[in-house]
């Protein structure tokens, strides 16, 4: 009989996997419930005990697209997040490089202040300023405000990556006759492409999920996805089923995206965290 030891190992393995599954339930449960809510009708959603087995309907999902112009919101979120991330990279990479190389901690302070300030305090001044510049309900205004979130994040993350980069490579390139600028673009940037990927991803995700700024500063043309979820709360009715459907459609793109780039995210965050 193969014994005690073999059996225990398998038993232990089963136990471990059971625990692993248990630990995976909480993260997943909310998502599952979100999808179920979207598949139920209004009445089913206020029924108690809640039904786990029921006839699903796609009506709510259809309504989200038909009634609420959801494609436009997705496009808007995509545009704003994309622009904010892109601009943050263009502005942030040289800045982070400089801060790391020349130890310009003082600039780092502005970054920190930006990240510590409550977002709400930006709202009123921005609204007044953008109003004067006639920029309400424009991608310009939204992107500028999202920069508050993305630019400091890019710089903060990238400083760690640049700090971890050996200067010898740069020096070697310059001996070869490159200007500093060229060596920056051709040597340095590729070296930190992991960091770039991480900060781009983080930027994008945080910008996509931003609610408050978009609420106040967007209009029908530029409404982004998180604001759209509030479409389902109206006077006299909370459309739980609609919220379920909308939430699913809002959360899934970002989560699926994160899924595909998860390794980069974790790597980047850990590096950034450790090198601080």
């Amino acid at each position, binding site marked *: 009989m193969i014994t005690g030891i073999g059996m225990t190992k398998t038993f232990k393995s089963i136990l471990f996997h059971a625990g692993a599954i248990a630990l995976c339930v909480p993260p997943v449960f909310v998502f599952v419930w979100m999808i179920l809510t979207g598949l139920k009708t*209004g*009445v089913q959603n*206020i029924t108690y005990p809640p039904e786990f087995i029921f006839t699903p309907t796609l009506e709510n999902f259809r309504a989200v697209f038909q009634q609420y112009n959801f494609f436009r919101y997705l496009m808007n979120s995509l545009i704003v997040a994309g622009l904010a991330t892109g601009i943050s990279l263009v502005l942030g990479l040289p800045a982070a490089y400089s801060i790391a190389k020349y130890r310009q901690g003082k600039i780092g302070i502005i970054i920190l202040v930006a990240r510590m300030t409550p977002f709400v305090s930006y709202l009123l001044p921005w609204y007044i300023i953008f109003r004067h510049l006639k920029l309400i309900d424009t991608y310009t205004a939204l992107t500028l405000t999202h920069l508050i979130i993305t630019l400091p994040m890019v710089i903060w993350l990238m400083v760690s990556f640049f700090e971890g980069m050996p200067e010898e490579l740069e020096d070697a390139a310059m001996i070869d006759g490159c200007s500093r600028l060229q060596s920056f673009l051709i040597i340095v940037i590729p070296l930190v492409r992991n960091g770039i990927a991480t900060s781009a991803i983080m930027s994008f995700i945080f910008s996509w999920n931003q609610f408050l700024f978009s*609420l*106040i500063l967007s209009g*029908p043309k530029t409404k982004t996805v998180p604001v759209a979820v509030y*479409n389902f709360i109206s*006077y006299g*009715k*909370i459309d739980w089923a609609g919220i379920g459907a909308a939430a699913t459609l809002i959360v899934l793109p970002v989560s699926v995206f994160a899924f595909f780039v998860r390794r980069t995210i974790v790597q980047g965050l850990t590096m950034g965290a450790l090198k601080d």
Partner: protein
Amino acid sequence: MKRRMICVVLVALLCLGMISATAFAGVDWKQLQGTEIRFLMNKHPFTTYIEPKVPEFEKMTGIKVTIEAFPEDQYRNKRTIELNAGGKVDGYMIMPGQDDLHYWKAGWLQPLDAYIADPTLTEADWNIKDFFTSFTKASSVDGRQIGIVINAETSLLSYRKDLFKTFKVKVPETMKELEQVAKSFYGKEVEGKKMVGITLRGKGAAATSQWVDFLYSFGGSWTDAQGKSNLASPKTIAAFKFYGDLLRNYGPQGGTMLHWAESTSMFMEGKAAMIYDANVFKALYENPKESKVAGKVGYATIPAGPAGRIPHVSNWSLSIGKTSTPERQKAAWLFIQWATNKNNCLGALLAGVPSGRASSWNSKEYKSKDDHPDWTANTMKSFEMGQPQWNPPVLNVPEIRDITGQVIVDAIEGKDVTASAKKAAELMDKKMER
């Protein structure tokens, strides 16, 4: 001589003809063709009703209308911020009882009297007198008309008439009876569910809109004769106590977090025997797609307190932004006039939005389609005896509502109401702005 006479008569007739032609020409709906206006609206059943019809208006007038609608909480914030920052807001929805004093003082409300009196801008048939006087008055400040009512609201006691029949319960006529009925239903098992006697709003500031009916029915008021806070008067405290006890003892758990959404969900799920909330929710209760109690609901007015039956009346109105241009303001007026004409008000009423026009309620079409005459009758009754001062008579209404709401929360939680009310009264005196 005769020829001259004929000429004079002919010319006179011609003049008469021309004058009468202009007199009966009415409003030239295309006079502001090409104008673009923007309306900020609350996500309200009226908005749901009127939005699909906007192309009709646009075709008739050549005016381009953009409507932006937001859920209520966000709507208020956005509206105030935009108006303050001078945004392009040509028209908007407003609850006069809540925001008119503030907005009037801030110079954001355009008086409508001039437009109403102008025959080139307002059709005679539109007739402002068709609207209930109490609502027209409620939508005016300092004697100037600042809004036209689109949603006439009051609160009703909605109850499960099927359960009342089964258990042989009478509709409560007094507050004492209300308490008894709620008690009798609390904890009863019906259709496999444990019932609660009644559900009410309990979430602080939001609850004041319903609590105020109890305030008046118990003989209390927001302010006393000197204009100071009356929150700590014995009658007001009685109202707090009754409301809080009712919800705590015979209502759902977690009463202090009940907003109308949770409250109405409870009722529609069939777990509450009664609910006291806005009349406009009938459209929800009676919709089988949303509600399990469709067809089983009866409607009554608030039971009588020591001071009588005094529900509040409130309304949503359409107003014009004062900071807009004169041309866009006129265009906005045309829109408001169209949206509130007899046709649209009746249409809205049929869609479940309580109209502010008497003609809508009295129309044959409505009467024939009305399958809830008790709702209609009691809504009308409430309109008549309702108290329009449903908010504290101050400029900073939200803040004072918030202070009052804290007392309601304390009452629901069973804390010392007298102490809480005294504190709130002091705070209200300190913070109120006029």
